[in-house]
């Protein structure tokens, strides 16, 4: 048994009611590693992230996923979050009527409750929130805004990284968190990700662009095509993709 293994995906197949999307994915993520997944539009990258986070709309038809030795697929989305998985959404969801403060406070305290801890005091919570908002340079007035409602594309992505910092996950899955960011926001997001980079943790970064990888250095790069990982290599693969596209990789 390899104690460094956080996530182990074996032969994962998943579909929606009318479409087969993942056709046998194998992936092992160890502590301290940053994995990058690239691949053409529609390959199944977001589906893989959603399946790992437990989105009910997807049906797993074959395969096995363990997280910290536990059977991930039998856990509810909230249990996966409590166990330390975080998904930064490609398309963050708007929740009218729920403020960021209320949302993240409920999230933080739900997890504390699940772990048998008392809720954070109001003071401790506000201090933590202020600190994490500063980390991603989010203005304090966002605390009172409704979750993602009326946010620009970049503000939504920053909000994802803010939530990630608040929840301090063991495994972060970033689904195109860099898309739609200006250069400054990109650097801030990358900094946010890098502060979470420790020997105990790991990240899976889904991206279409090399530019994020100037800030976040990947250990392993995978290409997902038509529901399968067709190539796994070091960071030099990114340059090859940038030059030649995905046609050369099969």
């Amino acid at each position: 048994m390899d104690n460094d293994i956080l996530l182990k995906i074996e032969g994962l197949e998943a579909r929606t009611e009318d479409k087969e999307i993942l056709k046998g994915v194998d992936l092992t993520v160890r502590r301290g590693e940053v994995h990058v997944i690239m691949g053409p539009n529609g390959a199944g990258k977001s589906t893989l992230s959603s399946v790992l986070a437990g989105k009910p709309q997807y049906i797993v038809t074959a395969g096995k996923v363990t997280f910290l030795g536990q059977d991930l697929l039998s856990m509810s989305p909230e249990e996966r979050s409590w166990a330390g998985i975080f998904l930064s959404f490609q398309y963050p969801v708007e929740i009218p009527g729920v403020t960021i403060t209320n949302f993240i406070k409920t999230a933080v305290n739900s997890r504390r409750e699940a772990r048998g801890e008392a809720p954070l005091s109001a003071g401790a919570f506000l201090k933590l929130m202020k600190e994490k908002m500063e980390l991603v340079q989010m203005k304090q007035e966002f605390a009172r805004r409704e979750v993602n409602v009326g946010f620009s594309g970049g503000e939504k992505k920053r909000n994802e990284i803010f939530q990630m910092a608040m929840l301090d996950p063991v495994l972060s899955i970033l689904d195109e968190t860099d898309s739609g960011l200006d250069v400054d926001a990109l650097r801030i997001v990358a900094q946010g990700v890098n502060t979470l980079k420790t020997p105990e943790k790991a990240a899976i970064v889904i991206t279409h662009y090399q530019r994020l990888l100037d800030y976040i250095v990947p250990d392993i790069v995978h290409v997902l095509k038509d529901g399968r990982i067709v190539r796994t290599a070091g960071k030099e693969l990114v340059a090859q993709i940038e030059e030649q596209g995905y046609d050369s990789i099969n």
Partner: protein
Amino acid sequence: MTGKDENGILRSGTRDKVLYVIGEETENLPFVKTAEGFRVIAAGGAGRHIVLEGNAEAEIMALVLPGTGETNLDFNVEMAGAGAVCRLFGIYLCPENERLRINVNLTHSQGQCSSYQSFRGIVGGTARVEFNGRIVVCQDACKTEAYQENQSLLLSDEARVDTSPQLEIYADDVKCSHGAAVGRLDENEQFYMRSRGIPEREAKVLQMISFLSPVLDFLPEGRDRDALAGMVEQTIRNRF
């Protein structure tokens, strides 16, 4: 019309604020005892015929709590003098087998009056809700502003809501709008919240509270509004 019936003329320049709480054993609810301007109706229904004279202001809020069986809520409002303002709000919470009928008949007979209506509710089990909202703007009622919305959340396949807004405008130069919608709890919102560690049940409670909060937001800030919001939240937690 069943139950209590209150009719009245709101004289020029006067204000009236009333909150109806419709439900069983509501008299003993802590916030009903302390707050001002509440009329408690145990169950069965309520009705009000109100005529607003010039510059009169009426604020009416109805809260329908679970377990009321058959209930009729009838509001007949006449905007009879220039400058009158009527705010008419309702929240209905029907998780079981309630039969609720809301009839609003609001007439602008004189011009330069404003009326705002917002009714929202959550309907589950085998409950049925019927909303009939009629706004009439008479020929002489120029510069009328009339706004009405009715939105419901359906929680089960057997629950039903029928909403029929009706606008009859005979005057020129008026601003009127009305909207009605029946929806369900959004699953993408739920998954987003759950992925952050918010349990499914809590995610649904948050959705229900946020769905109703626009109605509460119409009320002036203060102790009564807080008490009412607290009561709505508690009811959602305990009964849905």
